[in-house]
């Protein structure tokens, strides 16, 4: 499977009378965008604001971040199972409005979190302070249940990204990256002397505000299976979760997963990157046993020499991570695990809720309990009152002067467990 990603560099975003990309600026017809994402009668209103890096703006609570993309050629369409049919994606050409992002905000539960500061100390902790953000504010009708509200806001984000992505369909990209993965036997024949490596991609799948979808399927209902890495780049995996915002993978991060991206860099040179094993993180312990049995079985079946395993979330996924690590290691396959830490504010406590000696190669995205003071910013988009009641916030988080003190777990993407940020921790 071969996918060309055409990167159309976006350096500014502006409202205009027509949605188009011209000279690296994304012009947006606001009314047309709102019209394209409207129609869900569970929502009372939808508004759009534009936010640029360096502006004195705080967006909260951020639900999802989505990158505008469009399928130019090849089978299927973007976000299969949601906005497109379930045809297999990951082949042909996809254009990306690189540098632009759709950010959705909606207060689905009273303790919701997800802070994106576009300037100041908080901006250093979120990757989405560096993107040109089209913020979609969706307010629910009175009486809408949390599940319906979540689904409605999720779909608005996908629709907005699709609508904006269409503006790049006929634009000549600034650069084109090619990613190719061959069928397993062909790939093994092509690189007979290279170690075979795969990515075990753990998806959070526990319920309301904790879900992930694959080709439209609720991933808690899957058994582990194989994807070509390029399928992920076309939106085969999308986010339905946002609780504990620091280590959740927004849809943008699935589309740009750095593990997949970086594994391609030395594919065919130092190793043979054969594919992605997706698996879930369910609460029922027998599900955890079954899914980790299957990741280990698939790893063995593919004849792998090494895997990278990434976690998503806090608490019970630590158990999935360790089960995957132990069982795959027991097959004689080398493992590297990616996680983040809840080591207490002083960083001195046990970081994970589970551990095992087989997890001796571990990369961390940082300590989510670390606290930070975010100064008052000039403009707020969303609901600042939730800051007092979010994960990482606590009584008195929102101070009289408008500044807030929170643990960095409240900041979207701060301790990304797939490495979509700058933080880590080192042992000397």
């Amino acid at each position, binding site marked *: 499977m071969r996918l060309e990603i055409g990167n159309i560099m976006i350096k500014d975003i502006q409202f205009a009378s027509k949605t188009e990309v011209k000279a690296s600026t994304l012009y947006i017809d606001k009314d047309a965008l709102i019209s394209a994402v409207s129609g869900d009668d569970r929502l009372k209103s939808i508004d759009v604001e534009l936010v640029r890096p360096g502006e004195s703006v705080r967006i909260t609570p951020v639900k999802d971040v989505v990158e505008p993309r469009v399928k130019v050629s090849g089978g299927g369409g973007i976000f299969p199972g949601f906005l497109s049919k379930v045809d297999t994606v990951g082949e042909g050409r996809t254009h990306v409005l690189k540098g632009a992002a759709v950010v959705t905000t909606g207060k689905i*539960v*009273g*303790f919701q979190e997800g802070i994106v500061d576009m300037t100041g100390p908080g901006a250093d902790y979120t990757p989405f302070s560096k993107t040109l953000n089209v913020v979609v504010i969706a307010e629910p009708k009175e009486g809408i249940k*949390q*599940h319906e509200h979540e689904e409605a806001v999720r779909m608005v984000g996908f629709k907005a990204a699709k609508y904006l992505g269409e503006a790049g369909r006929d634009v000549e990209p600034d650069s084109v990256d090619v990613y190719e993965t061959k069928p397993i036997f062909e790939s093994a024949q092509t690189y007979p002397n290279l170690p075979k490596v795969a990515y075990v991609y753990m998806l*959070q799948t*526990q*319920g*309301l*505000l*904790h879900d992930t979808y694959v080709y439209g399927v609720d991933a*808690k209902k899957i058994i582990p299976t194989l994807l070509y890495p390029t399928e992920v780049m076309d939106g085969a995996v999308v986010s339905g*979760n946002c*609780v*504990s915002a620091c*280590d*959740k993978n927004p849809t943008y991060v699935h589309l740009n997963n750095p593990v997949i991206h970086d594994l391609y860099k030395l594919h065919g040179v130092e190793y043979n990157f054969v594919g992605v094993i997706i698996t879930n993180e*369910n*609460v*029922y*312990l*027998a*599900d*955890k046993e079954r899914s980790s049995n299957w990741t280990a079985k698939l790893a063995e079946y593919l004849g792998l020499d090494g895997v990278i395993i990434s976690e998503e*979330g*806090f*608490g*019970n996924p*630590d*158990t999935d991570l360790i089960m995957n690590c132990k069982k795959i290691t027991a097959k004689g396959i080398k493992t590297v695990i990616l996680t983040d830490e*809840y080591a*207490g*504010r002083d960083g001195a*406590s*046990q970081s994970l*809720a*589970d551990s095992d000696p087989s997890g001796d190669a571990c990369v961390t995205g940082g300590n989510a*309990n670390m606290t930070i003071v975010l100064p008052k910013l000039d403009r707020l988009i969303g609901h600042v009152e939730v800051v007092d*009641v979010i*994960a990482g916030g*606590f*009584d008195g988080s929102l101070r009289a002067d408008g500044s807030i003190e929170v643990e960095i*777990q409240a900041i979207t993407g701060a301790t990304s467990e797939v490495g979509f940020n700058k933080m880590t921790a080192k042992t000397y």
Partner: protein
Amino acid sequence: MIVITNNPKVRAYFNTCDVQFVDGNYEAVLIKTRDLVHQNYKLLTHPLSGSVKPNETPYKSIALEVSNALDVAGLLLIENAIEVYGKLQKDARTPNWTERILLDFMVIDFDLFKNAVVKAI
């Protein structure tokens, strides 16, 4: 299946199961569960069921079943969960939430628990 919970929504929904309602906090549910594991009950669901932290949500629901041997793996999970609870409470205690937010926490705990055990009931 036995349900240990301090969440009224879980108690109401699982009224055909053996629900042992705990009139106490999150930690009390963990402790009750640990005691049952020591009495040879087998843990069916992970005690840290979601990303809502034990110093945020006051609600916790856990499923067990009768067994005839000590569930050693389950005992480790529940002991680790108690340790995580203590660690996070030390830094910031669970706030006194408003009724509206308590209801949201109930809904999340209920949804995660229902999704976990739907096959077991």
